């Protein structure tokens, strides 16, 4: 390959990741969204907040009754005017005002309790979604995209929050107003009511006819906004990569495409709902006209009073207002239902199988034994019938080529994944039958891909064990020489390390992850390439301290750094998922196999 410099290469064909197909992948993992089922479930969830939902129902009823009585009192007031009855006018006028006052109080209570119901429901949905993410099999995370998943819980949750907090109360009071108005109208004059309601079937038919389309439109808007969030979070996390390769323009173009999709699906949804809103207005006017004409005719024949007719007109408006509002809320209803369906899909994702979660509390007295164990990620075996024993207190080293299956083996020992063949037992009990969290409490891992949380170095070391004191951390840090690694930090171990620890050097990040494991003083220490990014001098200090620390503990150490091998007393060599050698350091060196070769390369000067 000759090296030439071409100056600016003209932009050639652009590969866009197949983002559309991701929706399909997602559908496959979550299953289709069932709006109707979601609605029923949502209602049940909301009613589980008993006190508040009871308050909502009562106040909605009171508000609706008060709200629907005032046109009546208006009508009666007008009748009093026409019959020159001033006492009646004052009486009905005051009644008119009183009804507003009643409404004021009941609405106030309703606003608060309905927000409580709505927000409690959303909180519980979000909490449950996150809770379930802790239970799904790990391989779930290999299939879904972080940004899309987050969007379900935040964006979609927000759409639901909008709807439940602001629109639903209106809908409920709207519907009850409609029902009560109709009953009063019937009571006042059933014939005129029939005329007034002549437009209703048209309204209902129209609404139902466009429903599927509206729903599809809103699913489109939710998906396209999720694609935007997903793309954004991926790109923000990959910003270094984008810059290194000058992919700014290409990335922006790709984003613009998703943005355009979102624009189009929004416009499509809006077009329909705007038309809907306008048509409803016309239907309303038709209803009013019918009342006026029919009322006029009946009035002439003395069947109706003017006051009643005025009340009817007001009722019709009162009646259509919520309907128009409903049509506006309908968009947000559809949007919310799609959203809640997407959250339920996370909640419903199947967790780890019960027989894998186990029920027996773990104890480690003798040994962990692996027998003819195999594991496969899909096609070939990543681990191919391995047998080994990890007696309590032993120190085992695992080495081998990259991709040999070392991390996979440690994942099985950590009970992150289930084997596909053979067995893993602890003190003779099948690992599957052991209750996972009790088992993991025996272990502290240093993962190959360490992860740091936002916060300080202390926060990350202590993590979920607030009982660990800072003194303990300080002591550990000094004895393992970590204090030297963090020597330059502005606020020592209190320095905040940025999102995912980005404001640290890689070696520092690894140091934190080692401290996090060591400070827990576990019975079993599983370390996967713990010092791969730490300089040899610091590593020597760590090892010296570690050899004392390890007394009485069990160690499983995966490493490419043979300087660490002095820590272990038994070495297992993996190759393509198989155990190819096992023995003590000197034995393996003498036998001249893979281990000897790798060791030779690294220590040759």
């Amino acid at each position: 390959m000759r090296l030439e410099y071409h100056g600016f290469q003209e932009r050639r064909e652009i590969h866009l990741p197949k983002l559309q197909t991701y929706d399909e992948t997602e559908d496959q993992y979550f299953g289709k969204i069932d709006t109707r089922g979601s609605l029923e479930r949502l209602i049940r969830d909301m009613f589980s907040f008993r006190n508040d939902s009871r308050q909502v129902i009562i106040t909605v009823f009171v508000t609706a009754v008060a709200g629907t009585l005032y046109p009546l009192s208006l009508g009666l007031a007008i009748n009093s005017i026409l019959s020159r009855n001033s006492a009646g006018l004052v009486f009905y006028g005051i009644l008119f005002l009183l009804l507003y006052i009643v409404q004021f109080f009941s609405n106030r209570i309703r606003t608060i309790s309905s927000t409580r119901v709505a927000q409690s429901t959303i909180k519980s949905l979000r909490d449950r979604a996150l809770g379930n993410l802790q239970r799904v099999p790990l391989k779930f995370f290999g299939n879904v995209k972080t940004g899309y998943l987050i969007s379900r819980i935040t964006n979609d949750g927000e759409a639901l929050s909008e709807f439940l907090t602001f629109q639903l109360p209106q809908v409920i009071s709207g519907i009850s107003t409609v029902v009560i108005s109709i009953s009063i109208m019937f009571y006042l004059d059933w014939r005129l009511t029939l005329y007034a309601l002549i437009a209703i079937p048209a309204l209902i038919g129209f609404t139902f006819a466009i429903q599927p389309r509206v729903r599809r439109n809103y699913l489109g808007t939710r998906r396209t906004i999720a694609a935007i969030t997903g793309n954004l979070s991926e790109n923000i996390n990959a910003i270094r990569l984008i810059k290194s390769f000058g992919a700014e323009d290409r990335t922006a173009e790709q984003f613009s495409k998703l943005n355009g999709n979102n624009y189009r699906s929004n416009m499509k949804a809006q077009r329909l709902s705007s038309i809907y809103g306008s048509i409803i207005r016309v239907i309303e006017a038709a209803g009013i006209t019918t009342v006026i004409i029919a009322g006029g005719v009946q009035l002439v024949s003395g069947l109706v009073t003017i006051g009643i007719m005025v009340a009817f007109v007001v009722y019709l408006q009162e009646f259509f207002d919520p309907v128009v509002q409903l049509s506006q809320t309908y968009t947000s209803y559809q949007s919310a239902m799609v959203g809640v369906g997407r959250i339920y899909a996370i909640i419903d994702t199947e967790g780890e199988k019960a027989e894998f979660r186990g029920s027996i509390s773990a104890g480690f007295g003798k040994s962990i034994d692996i027998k003819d164990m195999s594991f496969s990620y899909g096609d070939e075996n990543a681990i191919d019938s391995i047998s080994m024993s990890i007696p309590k207190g032993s120190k085992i080293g695992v080495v081998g080529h990259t991709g040999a299956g070392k991390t996979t083996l440690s994942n099985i020992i950590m009970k992150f994944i289930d084997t596909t063949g053979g067995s893993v037992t602890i003190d003779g009990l099948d690992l599957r039958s052991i209750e996972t969290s009790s088992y993991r409490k025996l272990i502290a891992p240093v993962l190959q891909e360490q992860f740091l949380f936002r916060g300080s170095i202390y926060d990350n070391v202590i993590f979920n064990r607030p009982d660990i004191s800072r003194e303990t951390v300080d002591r550990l840090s000094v004895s393992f020489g970590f204090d030297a690694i963090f020597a330059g930090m502005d606020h020592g171990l209190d320095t905040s390390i940025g999102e995912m620890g980005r404001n640290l050097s890689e070696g520092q990040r690894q140091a934190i992850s080692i401290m996090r494991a060591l400070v827990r003083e576990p019975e079993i220490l599983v370390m996967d390439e713990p010092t791969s990014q730490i300089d040899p001098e610091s590593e020597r200090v760590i090892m010296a301290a570690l050899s004392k620390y390890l007394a009485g503990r069990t160690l499983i150490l995966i490493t490419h750094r043979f300087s660490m091998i002095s820590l272990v007393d038994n070495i297992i060599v993996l190759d393509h998922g198989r155990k190819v050698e096992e023995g003590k350091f000197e034995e393996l060196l003498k036998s001249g196999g893979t281990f000897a070769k790798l060791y030779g390369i690294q220590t040759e000067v």
Partner: protein
Amino acid sequence: MSSNLFKKILWVFDPLLFSFKYISRKKWALYAVIIAAIISTIARLYVPLLIGDSVSSIENLDLRGLEYFAILIIVVTAISAAFQFIVNYGSQFIGQTYSFNLRNNVFNHLVRKSFSFFEGQTTGDLLSRTTMDIEASRNFITSTLSQLIPTIFMIVFGLYFLLTINWVYAAVFILSVPLMVYIGMVFQRKQRLHWRSIRGYYGRMNEELQENIIGQRTIRGFSAEEWEISKFMSTTDSYYQEYVQVAKLRGLYNNLLPLVLGGAATVILIYGGYSSLISSASVGPLVAAINIFTLVSPSVSSIGRLIVFSENARAGIQRINDVISEEYVEKLDRGAGAPLSSDLEFENVSFSRGNRKILDSLSFSISGGEFVGITGKTATGKSTLVNLMLRFYDPDFGSIRIGGVDIRSLPLTVLRRMISIVPQEITLLSGTIRENIAYGSPGASMDEIRSAADIANISAFIETLHEGYDTLVGERGITLSGGQKQRIAVARAILGKPQVLILDDSTSSVDPETELEMFRMIKSSLRGMTVINVTHRHSAMKYADRVFKLDHGSITLLHDESGMQDASGVSRIPGEEGDPSA
């Protein structure tokens, strides 16, 4: 005082002015919406008058008149509805066009921001700027057009129509409108702080979710599931509490509005009723007045809400402005053409973070085609040093030259094509292996991709996969082993045939044999390419022509090809990969 108030009123429309930039070519839509709003409003307000007239005709038993007015009601409503459609759809059109253009612009700026910008931000926060903040301003624009403008016309025309009926009705109206607007504003003021916290908690929710998804193994490994759940629950709880606080305010203020309306309507009813009772005038006008009142009031009370929208929008725009300002934006294409050679020279380069000096007056040079190793203790600044070469950061003092040209005078696109880096923390994107390798050169042929994979010593592995180069790797390369990820990143870096290749500890998860093979291939296949290999491993220096050691901000030559030590007498690399029997 009054000019102040006037300013405040104009302030409400500030976001609208901001939005003009993003709808420039669609201005006609704006005018259409405003005109349609006027027509539709007049038509809508005309309907109550017609209802009043028809009631009067009934009183007079004038059936013809009644018929006439009834038909007119339908016609006028239809006109109003048609124009209302233009208003609704048009304002959505403008709002969506605005958010589309703005979002593109934000993104364009975002990808061009320098690292220093991103170090001060969190993903969650940037996400909320590009979604929530844009949404907030769009919301304001859409509702201003579809509600505020019609409302203003509604008030004006409503007043006019009331005046034509009876001045007392108009006076009641004039008194109650400011009261309603005032209540709305007080309410908005009070709830603003709560909304700010709600947004804050929303951002935190985003962050915690991200940590929970990406850090899932760590969480499970430490049995921290319950811990994380309770952390998240406390965030959602704070979020909930804020919402309830807002509801308490809404419960009071929002419901005061209809009460004011009810009071005013009662006054009109009793006053109007009484006077027509005395004068035995028709009740038609009274009915019309009450009707106008009920029609106008909801829109009046929505003014308060629009004012909050405006405040939210302004806050959002401020945050968006941070992104779309030119600050921290890298100028990709500025500067002269490419230099002729790839000799690198560092002259007195210093770099500090806060008050910590990380690099202190470094001077050294690397000639084109050299294979150089850089070692040094953890956190001494090796990564910082190599990042300077790509201008991810600029030195505080001193200069870096490539082929004699200061890198600051090169277009960034040229510089970054000349120098390729495999960073210490590998980023793979969800997609196929092929897409990941070809990331920097999307037009690369399959042969080129394969040969890059060969050199990175990863092709053999890829070919064992069922789908070969088309195998999907999960997000962040979740389905690959540590060493496989690193080698794919190496293949990606060499595919573009850079003149300088920087490997920042890129073989830390690779076994010594594979590592050595990779370096051998790089050295033999990519002749003429300068390689800078940052590493802690002694064995990785085997192919290095020279090895530098970075220590406390200064750099020293450890040894060169001939095994010579540098003048300062620093010893050769001690037997760092210690003797296991020691």
